[in-house]
């Protein structure tokens, strides 16, 4: 991989890595005795390791060919492998915490393994580790192919992928050491947050510079979604993480906002993490890999426009549906509820657009598990957005809020939509990128598909049951007008559902492990002489970037 760098680029990377090493050293020294010091050592060792990789190949022959004639797929490869590694880790932790809720002593003695510290390891690991790496890797793939241009820059893509993973590692190890801001999905502390801003700016500049090189007049739909993902996540991240550190040599900081303003800012962030991380970016994936794999054009250009701007505009308003009946002023709750219901229109427009694209290719859906992953993902996208709009209605939310019904909704979206579309996209992308005809084993893809689907269904049905049961028990009164059930009664009722969820999660995890093995075997089977399948071209003379309508 280093051989694709010119000597000057290798030197530049070394300088960058040396700066990182120094930063790590400074953090380790200043933060000694605090978790920040441990993070300093992580930065230090990660940079040193990379210095050895780059330095060891410093004087290898420089590339002679014209690099702009080929796509740049090395960072994508690393991104996909990292996404799968995070998938296995974070789903493993997810299943572990699921079992902990059934059998609380299923843990180690150390404080690090308590539920409160491990739960964010699951959510961050899965959303940012698995989802984020998959988004970055596929965005690099999609933008090059739909622009017919090579990534702008040799070092920047590596900086984005590796820098991003450094952020996730700092976040996740931080929670285990008790470093957290306690804001859901934004738990990482101030220095990790600042680092992510730097990475993100480089990411967006890279995106714009690659778009500027495009050999295609129009920017394809998938890129709009990826752009919305990058841009809005940046704004959300910066505002919600505004905080004052107690000391610049320790991790602890205090949120700039308090109470009701903090709650609204947090859920403005929180739901738009759902919107622009877990939806927008993955819709970008869907808009490229689904038509590509089905070999059919997107059903409707008009629906694409409608749903894109609908999602971008409406989502921002809905955060307050997380705060129904709380101390948040009533008018904000009402706005949130109204926009949540309206949001169903662009959401179903996207899901419908995806499903109609498959119309006429149903035999492929039947035969090809990769396409089936994407099909089922689109169905779950439709289901979970419907459920979401329903849950956002105040009286419904009075029952569902605080219960496992929310968790059921989350995982219908997260497993059924986010994870399945990602697996579909990865199975579509891996052969393209590693230049093979197919995956190592299509049977393993089938196995993965059925395990993932079964796991999702078991998980979601178990949590629907437990959530609705618990919500109803909490509000049941006796004839005499007193509450019938103690909190403890409701907990005992949850127990069997928690076991069912643990089993569902295990199936889902098993699927992911099979997927990981399959991808690994596909990579291993690649010969160094395999043919380049596609190159940037000036015109559509070869194959169009995405299937187009007549």
């Amino acid at each position, binding site marked *: 991989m280093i051989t694709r760098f010119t000597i000057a680029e290798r030197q530049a990377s070394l300088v960058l890595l040396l700066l990182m090493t120094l930063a790590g050293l400074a953090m380790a020294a200043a933060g000694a005795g605090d978790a920040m010091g441990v993070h300093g050592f992580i930065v230090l060792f990660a940079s040193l390791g990379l210095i050895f990789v780059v330095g060891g190949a410093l004087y290898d022959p420089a590339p002679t060919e014209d690099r702009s004639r080929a796509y740049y797929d090395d960072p994508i490869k690393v991104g996909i492998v990292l996404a799968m590694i995070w998938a296995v880790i974070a789903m493993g932790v997810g299943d572990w915490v699921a079992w*902990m809720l059934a059998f609380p002593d299923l843990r180690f003695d150390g404080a690090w393994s308590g539920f409160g*510290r491990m739960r964010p390891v699951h959510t961050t690991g899965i959303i940012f580790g698995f989802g984020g790496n998959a988004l970055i890797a596929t965005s690099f793939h999609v933008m090059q192919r739909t622009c017919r241009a090579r990534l702008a820059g040799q070092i920047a893509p590596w900086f984005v992928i590796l820098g991003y993973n450094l952020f996730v590692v700092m976040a996740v190890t931080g929670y285990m050491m008790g470093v957290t801001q306690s804001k859901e999905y934004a738990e990482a502390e101030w220095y990790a947050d600042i680092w992510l801003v730097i990475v993100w700016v480089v990411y967006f500049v890279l995106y714009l510079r690659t778009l500027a090189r495009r050999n295609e007049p129009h920017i394809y739909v998938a890129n709009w979604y990826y752009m919305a993902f990058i841009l809005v996540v940046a704004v959300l991240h910066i505002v919600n993480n505004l905080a004052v550190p107690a000391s610049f040599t320790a991790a602890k900081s205090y949120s700039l906002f308090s109470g009701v303003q903090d709650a609204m800012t947090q859920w403005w962030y929180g739901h738009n993490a759902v919107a622009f991380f877990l939806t927008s970016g993955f819709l970008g994936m869907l808009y490229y890999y689904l038509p590509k794999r089905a070999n059919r054009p997107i059903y409707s250009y008009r629906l694409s426009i409608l749903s894109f701007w609908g999602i971008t505009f409406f989502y921002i308003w809905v955060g307050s549906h997380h705060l129904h009946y709380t101390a948040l002023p009533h008018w904000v709750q009402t706005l949130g509820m109204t926009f949540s219901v309206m949001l169903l229109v662009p959401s179903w427009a996207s899901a419908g657009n995806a499903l109609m694209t498959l119309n006429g290719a149903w035999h492929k859906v039947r035969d090809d598990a990769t396409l089936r992953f994407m099909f089922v993902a689109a169905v779950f996208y439709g289901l979970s957005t419907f459920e979401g709009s329903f849950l956002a209605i105040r009286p419904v939310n009075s029952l569902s809020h605080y219960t496992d019904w929310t968790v059921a909704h989350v995982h219908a979206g997260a497993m059924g939509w986010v994870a399945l579309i990602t697996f579909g996209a990865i199975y579509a992308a891996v052969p393209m990128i590693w230049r093979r005809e197919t995956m190592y084993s299509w049977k393993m893809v089938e196995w993965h598909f059925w395990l993932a689907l079964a796991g999702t269904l078991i998980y979601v049905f178990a949590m629907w049951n437990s959530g609705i049961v618990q919500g109803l028990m909490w*509000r049941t009164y006796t004839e005499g007008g007193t509450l019938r059930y103690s909190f403890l009664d409701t907990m005992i009722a949850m127990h069997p559902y928690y076991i069912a969820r643990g089993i569902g999660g295990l199936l889902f995890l098993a699927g992911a492990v099979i997927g990981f093995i399959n991808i690994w075997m596909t990579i291993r089977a690649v010969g160094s002489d395999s043919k380049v399948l596609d190159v940037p071209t000036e015109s559509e003379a070869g194959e169009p970037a995405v299937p187009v309508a007549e």
Partner: protein
Amino acid sequence: MIGWLKKLYYPIQAGHYRLEKHSIGLTIGIICAAMIGGFVEIAPLFTIDETVEDAPDMRLYTPLEQAGRDIYVREGCYACHSQMIRTLADEVDRYGPYSLAVESKYDHPMLWGSKRTGPDLARLGGKYSDDWHVAHLIDPRAVVPESVMPHYAFLADAPLDTASLPARLTALRRVGVPYSDAMIANADRDAAGQAQPDSDGADGVFDRYGDATQVRRFDGKAGRVTEMDALVAYLQILGKLTDAAHQMETAGMTPETEAAQ
């Protein structure tokens, strides 16, 4: 109707067709579309006075309680416990008067929570004795056999880091909590004093935080101040920073709670 919509739509589509050729145009479009909602919903919360009620009796967290709050955050108690009683009849019957915005006025960050694996803790203060809390945190299943709460036995042996408290209170003052210079300067001493009633430090706590402040050995042991002291001190103040919620309830001024159907 459809025809009319179509007439409206075609120029938009044509405009969009042009927009798609400009990455900066798209960037600006996305930023504009995505910023409006947040601005309309969040900015007024800082400017409209009625958003947060007045509560003249509202007091600050003492350094020991704030340290306990930081432990609550560190251990992720918020992942299982909410601190927000909604305006629903069954919640008020189960947990007490519903939460007011002013009660979390000094909470940086708020800990309202989103999942009740365990019960709401907004009005926990005074519900149980210190001993109950200590025993429960050391081994929840010894106290409540069906509990799925993790144990926090290590807190009882962990000495509290009081040295960093002045810096923590300073940071809190920067974000708007009105700690005085004397409170910041004495933060570490006050933290120790609040858990050691017979030490000299205890008087300072009363001076600075009022005579009603709870000063005692929260972990039941004399000697050093532990993280258990801090956490229990925090749990015992939950819902007791102001009496506003109870006053509202007895005055019958409550916007009526909504009965669950």
